[in-house]
């Protein structure tokens, strides 16, 4: 069957599934809309959390990034998984026991302050919008590449689908569509990976093929040794060795880890389970399901890199396989025959190099490079869409609850009825979908830069405030607020300076202590902790009922 028709059918079927789930799981109360009635079983929540977490960036771009960065790419692999250990051990069980709806709920109540609540609301909205713009763009990109529709039309279709199930079902609809989306995306990710592993090493498990010997047709020898050799030949740094300083790698990894643990759309997922034990258990399932993709990604990265270099380097341009031409048309692959010899020179030296390959190719074109059947390619399109839509929905819900619950119900309009609050929540999601769609169609040039911002902010604001709120009964309003503000201001200033005011200076020699803007959130977090503890010592203790509340969330309470 024609690839295009097959892709339409595959994507169409997955969309029908999502819509059917939405109709089945309509929300009728704010509790259902915000936290799926706290009735989600741990396994389902683990699956939903994994889909919520793994975005278009994880699915489409990550293997490509690792493929180009080699060992330095580990910052993303560890940074985007290690946070789940902190979530599971230090945050999720206690916030579940606290038993409210949102992260600003906890910050506002624990620090008995509307101001703290508003700081949390602004951070939650900012972080979520930053993130969701990229997802909508991802939807558009997948549509335009695989279904050959206009990128803007792709964004609009994506908006329509998310809008339908998010507005109808709220968290309940989102949760069960995310369960389906995880299944689609992990299947779509693993099938090509397994095929490529068999093709190149004869091992059916990509994680093992990663460290195995290559088949004779690929030159034999261990895959990673071969890759290091190829890199050396072409003048790139060895694949298994790093270029960045250890200190910078440490700070970036830590910032991504603490950021992950502080992201509201992830934390909020643990409010949806019935008990503290269920929260712990679903965190276990979540990291397990995430680990399946995250341990496969670096294997794909190494396979694809080797395969790519083998295929293109010093090969004749005219004899390139079909996929090369297809992706050249989308300008994700660009070839310029500088020395006019008709051969492709792919080397580190920019003067001599003739080939530019977009990193997204690694996942998107992988099935074609490995000559896999058409249905696998169609599956990758559906998987990319599932990854982008599931994350977008989770983020939109955070924005909606921040407005209808934290801003209106808990602050500006405490007298509205539940029914009115539910209507506001639905209007807020409509508004959020439109803003996200706008950013998807007119992407601000700074999307890539603001992702560092989102993690830096989450790490330097939410993470310390939540952890101190649980592990210290003495932490008070004054300490938490001044800590959050110090952390945010420091981190934001550093990132804004290097990314927006003076991007030319964004090199290792100018960085403070050699820490890149991507890693500065770690320092911001330490500053937050230091300021919070210092100010807390000098100011009044929190009221007794707050201390009692903290003691109470430390011990598992009644399940829902």
């Amino acid at each position: 069957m024609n690839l295009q028709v097959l892709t339409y059918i595959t994507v169409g079927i997955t969309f029908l599934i999502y819509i059917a789930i939405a109709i089945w799981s309509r929300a009728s109360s704010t509790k259902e809309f915000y936290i799926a009635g706290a009735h989600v079983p741990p396994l389902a929540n683990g699956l939903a959390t994994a889909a919520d977490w793994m975005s278009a960036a994880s699915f489409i771009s990550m293997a490509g990034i690792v493929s180009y960065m080699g060992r330095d790419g580990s910052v993303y692999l560890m940074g985007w998984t290690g946070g789940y250990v902190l979530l599971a051990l230090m945050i999720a069980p206690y916030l579940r026991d606290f038993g409210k709806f949102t992260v600003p709920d906890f910050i506002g109540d624990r620090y008995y302050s509307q101001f703290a609540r508003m700081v949390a609301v602004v951070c939650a909205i900012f972080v979520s919008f930053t993130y969701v713009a990229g997802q909508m763009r991802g939807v558009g990109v997948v549509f335009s590449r695989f279904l050959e529709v206009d990128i803007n039309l792709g964004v609009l279709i994506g908006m329509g689908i998310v809008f339908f199930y998010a507005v109808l079902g709220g968290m309940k609809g989102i949760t069960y569509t995310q369960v389906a989306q995880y299944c689609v995306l992990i299947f779509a990710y693993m099938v090509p990976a397994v095929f490529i592993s068999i093709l190149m090493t004869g091992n059916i498990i990509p994680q093992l093929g990663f460290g195995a010997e290559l088949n004779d047709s690929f030159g034999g020898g261990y895959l990673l040794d071969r890759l290091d050799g190829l890199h050396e030949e072409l003048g790139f740094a060895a694949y298994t060795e790093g270029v960045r300083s250890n200190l910078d790698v440490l700070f970036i990894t830590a910032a991504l880890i603490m950021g992950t643990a502080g992201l509201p759309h992830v934390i909020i997922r643990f409010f949806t389970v019935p008990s503290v034990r269920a929260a712990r258990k679903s965190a276990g399932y979540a990291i397990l399901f995430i680990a399946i993709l995250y341990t496969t990604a670096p294997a794909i990265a190494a396979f694809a890199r080797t395969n790519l270099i083998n295929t293109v380097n010093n090969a004749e341009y005219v004899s390139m396989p079909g996929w090369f031409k297809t992706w050249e048309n989308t300008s994700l692959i660009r070839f310029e025959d500088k020395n006019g010899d008709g051969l492709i020179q792919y080397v580190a030296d920019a003067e001599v190099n003739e080939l530019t390959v977009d990193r997204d190719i690694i996942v998107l074109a992988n099935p074609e490079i490995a000559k896999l059947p058409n249905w696998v390619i169609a599956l990758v399109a559906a998987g990319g869409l599932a990854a982008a839509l599931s994350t977008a929905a989770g983020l939109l819900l955070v924005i909606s609850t921040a407005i209808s619950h934290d801003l209106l119900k808990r602050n500006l309009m405490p007298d509205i009825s539940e029914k009115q609050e539910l209507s506001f929540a639905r209007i807020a999601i409509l508004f959020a979908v439109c803003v996200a769609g706008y950013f998807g169609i007119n992407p601000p040039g700074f999307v890539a830069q603001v992702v560092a911002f989102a993690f830096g902010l989450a790490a330097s604001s939410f993470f310390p405030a939540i952890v101190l709120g649980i592990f210290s009964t003495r932490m008070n309003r004054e300490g938490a607020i001044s800590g959050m503000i110090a952390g945010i201001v420091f981190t934001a200033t550093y990132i804004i300076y290097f990314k927006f005011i003076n991007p030319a200076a964004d090199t290792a020699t100018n960085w403070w202590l050699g820490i890149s803007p991507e890693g500065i959130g770690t320092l911001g977090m330490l500053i937050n902790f230091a300021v919070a503890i210092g100010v807390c010592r000098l100011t009044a203790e929190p009221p007794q009922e707050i201390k009692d509340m903290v003691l109470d969330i430390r011990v598992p309470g009644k399940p829902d």
Partner: protein
Amino acid sequence: MQKDDNKYWQENIRILTVLLGIWFVVSFLMSVIFVDQLDAIRIGGFKLGFWMAQQGSIYVYVIIVFVYLKLMDKLDHKHHHDEKDILAQEEAEELSQ
């Protein structure tokens, strides 16, 4: 009751300290700071430091979270914070009122 809650919390902190200690060693010491030294050791086609940074650390994360679940189940059971116990307590309180 208050005293028992205190003890429960102390033991919880001890579990966290050990598990987060392992987490720290695996993430930051083995995968970042001493990665080049570990690379001298080879397991099959992998250098150990590289493997820790791109594979091993993630496997350890999964194990840590499931070990935590088991240890906390045991601790909850010891201090009668099992889900069944909590529900039974609630019922007893309601009956006595």
